[in-house]
């Protein structure tokens, strides 16, 4: 979805074959047609990263195969044949664009969701969508989650996980009189950005400089936000993080 720049990565990467570099203009044209006619979420998604229809990235498909599918459509699917509907030059451009996607790396393989192990159970708990405020609402790991605070390396025990004190968490006092634990993001002469950690989901708030004061009072501990999980569940979460750390 947010990988629209990938096209340009192809363009500047030294590993790109010569013929692709020569076709950059055609890739650009094809990308425009693709984003208009093929990229919606019911079809192949922006950048070929899949909508309801399959992803088009990194399969290593040859040009002929792509050309046939674009012209004739694919049986027993919603993929229409575009021959006669798009001018031949446009079809060629789309084919070239999709072909260029074949060299891109598929997103990093995630943990298979169906394997039974502590680590896999931990992953399911980390991202459990039925719990509002799960680990993934603040931490990004293994391709999912919101990148508020880093999560690796993992603590050695559940006790250590609970006791984590973050030096980047201050107590914020706003000009309006609010007080809340705040994860520092950035401060410039004009503005201060912090994550407000007082609610179930962290809020990235921007204040004019001088409209918020940050004090290192150490009033916040990680334990406060672990209430959605039992002790055993946190052990499984740590197994998941250890497995990811070992892989990386």
């Amino acid at each position, binding site marked *: 979805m947010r990988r629209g720049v990938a096209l340009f990565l192809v363009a500047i990467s030294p590993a790109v074959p010569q013929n692709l570099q020569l076709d950059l203009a055609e890739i650009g044209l094809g990308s425009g047609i693709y984003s208009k006619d093929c990229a919606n979420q019911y*079809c192949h998604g922006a950048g070929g990263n899949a909508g309801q229809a399959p992803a088009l990235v990194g399969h290593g498909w040859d040009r002929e195969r792509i050309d046939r599918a674009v012209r004739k459509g694919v049986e027993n*699917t919603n993929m*229409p044949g575009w021959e006669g509907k798009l001018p031949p030059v446009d079809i060629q451009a789309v084919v070239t664009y999709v072909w260029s996607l074949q060299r891109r790396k598929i997103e990093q393989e995630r943990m298979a969701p169906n394997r039974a192990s502590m680590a896999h159970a931990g992953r399911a708990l980390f991202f459990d*969508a039925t719990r509002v405020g799960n680990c993934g609402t603040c931490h990004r790991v293994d391709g999912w989650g919101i990148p508020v605070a880093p999560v690796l390396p993992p603590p050695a025990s559940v006790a250590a996980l609970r006791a984590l004190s973050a030096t980047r968490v201050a107590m914020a006092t706003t000009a309006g009189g609010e007080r809340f634990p705040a994860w520092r993001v950035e401060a410039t002469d004009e503005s201060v950005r912090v994550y407000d950690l007082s609610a179930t989901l962290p809020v990235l708030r*921007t204040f004019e400089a001088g409209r918020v004061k940050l004090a290192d009072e150490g009033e916040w501990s990680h334990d406060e936000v672990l209430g959605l999980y039992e002790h055993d569940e946190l052990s499984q979460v740590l197994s998941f993080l250890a497995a990811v750390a070992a892989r990386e």
Partner: protein
Amino acid sequence: MEWTSRRGTRLAVALLLPLSLFAQGAGSDWSTYGGDLGAWRYSLLDQINTSNVSQLVPVWAFQTGDYANGLQSTPIVVDGVVYLSTSSNQVFAIDGARGELIWKYAYAPLLGVAATDRSRGVAFGHGLIFMGTDDSYLLALDQETGEEVWRVAVQDSDQCGCSITAAPLVVKDKVVVGGNGGDRAYRGSLSAFDAKTGRFAWRFFVTAGPDDPGHDTWSGDSWRLGGGAPWMTGSFDPELDLLYWGTGNAAADFDGEPRKGDNLYTASVVALNPDTGKLVWHYQTVPHDVWDFDSAYECILADLPVKGRMRKLLLHPAKAGYTWALDRITGEFVGAWPIVDEINWVSGITEDGKLVGRREPKLGEATYVCPSVMGAKSWNQGAFSPRTGWLYLPAAEMCNELYVRKQAPVEGKGNMAGFWRLKRPEGRENYSSVTAFDPVTGEKKWEHPYPYILLASILTTAGDLVFSGDPEGRFFALDARTGERLWSFQTGSGHRGSAVSYEIDGRQYIATPSGYGSIAGPIMSMFDDYLERDGSRSGGTLFVFALPESAR
């Protein structure tokens, strides 16, 4: 009775009109998605009317530069400033009289770059402009400067495969927003945040979990990824203090076998306590949907006589081809009437609301179903005029063959469990129309046919006009009482957004997004003779019209 707005234009007051006691409509501002909290898309302004609309001229145009997926937005207008969102989650604040840019906000995601997908509008309240993003964040911008005040990740887009395309709704001290993505393996939900701080307030999960009433309408664990995304904008009745929202279809779409039961609260209208998000009542329009018949569209709140008695109604036109009329105090079924000719997924709906003669798709067969997955009406909204008492809807006469395919759900990935082939119903000359209906009986008052599919919302005004646009680029005005076409202007690209009206210094303006795109375009291109390439030229422009200075 009339009153004088602060800028001096006289506005007709809906209160005294015969059919409605629920005073509504948009005045000099168009401050919320549906024009008012009851989603009427009705302007109280009558300077432009049936006798002078033919003199309407463009006064300015604003090019957004965002063309992919068209311009699907409803502009919001507050104190003479137009706030317009675009498909790459940019927001423009524009001087409503002169078309000059006041500020521009370009969304920068924390990861990657802004996608160019869809945005159907912003919300306004508490001095802030709110927008949902393609990566499922909700943002608040300073109304005066466009500076970002807060952002919060409503969900993780990478996990849920979902996004936010709908305009949020400001209700008292909160801002409420629903997510898109119900055809993915995903559990739809509606979330509310404190408007000033962005702090999470509540979440209503559309699929009933183990602690919710209705959980027994799901077999096994199917509720976990059961869809139901509430992907459009709801309504609010301040008197009853009830929030109304339509929900999406159950998933997997076409294979109902793994999710036996009614699948509450998918394909339903839900009434929630706006402070807590707790369910007050629900009405499921399509129990156990297997046709991709979301019930996510507008909830139009109007007080109308039914069999001699005034009722507080909620009118809900849905993909399935009917408008459901419900009592909005209790959720009681009042009636359902067809908005299109081509309906075969049921043979009918009984007087007490039961579906009769369901025609369900079966594994290994092509099942011919009308309406199609695109709906008897797309998400673009209808309008209600208290002057005529009629509901104006853009309707699509389209069918499809459904094919079921077994598919194991993977969280965040596509989960339709089948595919479809659009089929045009035989023997028709037009596949779409703007139609005026009696909202209680469904009686057709007039019909304005169109050969292709209309995909823009409708605006109606106290000048007894109905405005909409077509995919070929024409923006047009009809007489609200007769359907007669009174005026048209070629904007150069098709219409997929929603027109609004506002007033500055005594002058009434009509603003419409122009810019064709979205899912429907490529799907329709399956038909060899459909609009061809010329009819789907991209665009992303706001056109604004008014009477010439000399004419008013």
